[in-house]
């Protein structure tokens, strides 16, 4: 992995971040006068002028833009009008809940999806393969909110095993994490299967058979490490699905995370919070994608070698 590769990736990440910050700024300013939203259209001119000065809205547009970007760079995401406190504070309270749910769901999806994909690939075109693939399609076709509601109906209202909503004990975590994890498990199983199948058709696998490597060792030492490489990328992308899925899942189970904060902010048109969540997610996604890109070059020796010897790439 050479410096140029890293620099290109870094530059792309910065451009994406800049695009999102600019998108947030433009849309904040195109959506109407924030002072009018705050004070209503009956306010005195003096009061309006006072607030305009207070928030720096009397400055020229480019100056406002630079102040906005500088503020974001320093972690200042504005002030929530409906909660009357800084957005950063509000998000800092919601992030641990979202991480708890998201990481558990990610772990569940990997624990279910990857083994199922491997089993399906090893039993290609047999009944168990078809069964796993049907499960995978079902898993990502069922909408999060519907699966959540079915689980509430079954486990909370009929069987009375688990609490319907809220956060606190491990029982609260079970249904939201399963809901969020199932869809990701389905697509992960499908991806693992196709990755395994591709590796198993490679010439080095045939070589391994020819030199008498036992089946178990062939799968563990020859197939799995190679099949795992593309999985790293796909896990990076799954992160985005988890973020989007958590918006719905947190609302269904009244989980006090970022997703639910976003939904109530959209309903209340609390623009600062919406903008804050947007920027925070963009930063997370860009950093995750960057790490995946770099990890990819680091994990796969072939990419590393190709990068340092461009003539053979």
């Amino acid at each position, binding site marked *: 992995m050479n410096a140029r590769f890293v620099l290109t990736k870094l530059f792309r990440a910065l451009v994406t971040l800049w695009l999102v910050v600019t998108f947030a700024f433009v849309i904040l300013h195109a959506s109407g006068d924030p002072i009018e939203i705050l004070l209503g259209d009956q306010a005195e001119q003096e009061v309006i002028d006072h607030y305009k000065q207070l928030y720096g809205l009397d400055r020229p547009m480019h100056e406002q833009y630079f102040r906005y970007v500088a503020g974001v760079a320093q972690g200042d995401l504005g002030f929530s009008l409906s909660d009357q406190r800084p957005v950063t504070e509000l998000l800092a309270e919601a992030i641990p809940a979202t991480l708890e749910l998201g990481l558990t769901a990610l772990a569940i999806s990997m624990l279910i999806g990857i083994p199922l994909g491997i089993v399906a690939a090893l039993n290609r075109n047999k009944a168990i393969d078809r069964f796993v693939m049907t499960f995978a399609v079902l898993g990502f076709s069922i909408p999060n909110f*519907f699966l959540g509601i079915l689980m509430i109906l079954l486990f909370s209202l009929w069987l009375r095993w688990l609490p319907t909503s809220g956060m606190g004990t491990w029982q609260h975590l079970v249904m939201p994490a399963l809901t969020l994890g199932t869809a990701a498990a389905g697509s992960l199983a499908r991806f693992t299967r196709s990755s395994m199948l591709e590796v198993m058709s490679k010439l080095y696998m045939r070589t391994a058979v020819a030199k008498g490597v036992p089946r178990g060792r062939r799968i563990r030492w020859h197939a799995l490490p190679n099949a795992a490489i593309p999985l790293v990328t796909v896990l990076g992308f799954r992160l985005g699905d988890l973020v989007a899925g958590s918006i719905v899942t947190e609302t269904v189970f009244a989980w006090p995370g970022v997703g639910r904060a976003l939904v109530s902010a959209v309903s209340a048109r609390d623009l600062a919070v*919406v903008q804050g969540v*947007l920027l925070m997610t963009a930063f997370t996604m860009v950093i995750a994608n960057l790490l995946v890109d770099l990890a990819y070059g680091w994990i796969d020796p072939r990419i590393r070698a190709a990068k340092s010897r461009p003539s053979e790439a």
Partner: protein
Amino acid sequence: MSIASPLTEPAAAPGRARRFLRRYPPLVLLAALFIILTLLISAAADWIAPYHYTTQDLSNRLLPPVFLGGLAQYPLGTDELGRDILSRLIYATRFSVIIAILGTSIGAVLGTLIGFIAAHFRGWVEETLMMLVDAQASMPFMLLALAVLAFFGNSLVLFIVVLGINGWENYARLTRGMVLSASSQGYAVAVHALGATPARIYTRHILPNILSVLIVQFTLNFPATILLETSMSFLGLGIQPPLTSLGQMLGSGRSHLLLAWWIAVLPGTMIFLSTLSISMFGDWLRDRLDPTLRNR
């Protein structure tokens, strides 16, 4: 061998049936049937729905479906305002289908156009557009959609446009790649030499050649649009009452789960079955048109 033909006739039938079933697996046939049924229901909603979707019968609220002891005049029961669930389901399906078709089409046209533009101009135009594609692909789209609706307020037209923007990047990336490779192929070079304008080459010659791939992408994108629409309507941020969609029905039925679970479960089942059918059909179509992608 005069008796051979009457004997081989019935023997050939199972073979033919097996061949037919291998080409068209039963699940895919079932999926196609369900899609056709859904489209028919949406088209004929005005004729087959027993009631209008806003008609209320306040003395018959929260009735169970007829198979759970309800009244025959409301086969699937009624909701909290005494509205007939069957009629609402029919109309909600129609709204969801129309919105999904409009949304997916906007994305397809926009993305294809951008792909053509990128492939035609190359250089910095292509670089910029492809960077936009990457930026869009790296963000969860639902978040952008929610942000746009929060900033501009909710309206039906804006909502459909927002749904349309979802997925354009897939078409743009596909179209750009295919146009670039098609432009260097014999037929495109030949019509160019005959003096055809680029617009004519693109619309008359290249587009028909890449259309099948775009149609497959359309069927694969369609369930995603349905899921996005129903999710947002479920959150109360999409289709607004008195209009109804499957997601909106499910969302409002959520508060009556304990007393009347069917209000939420029926539209949910409908969403699940439609996305499932279209996904299965789309997968099958892709495998048929491009056998190299099989088992992916």
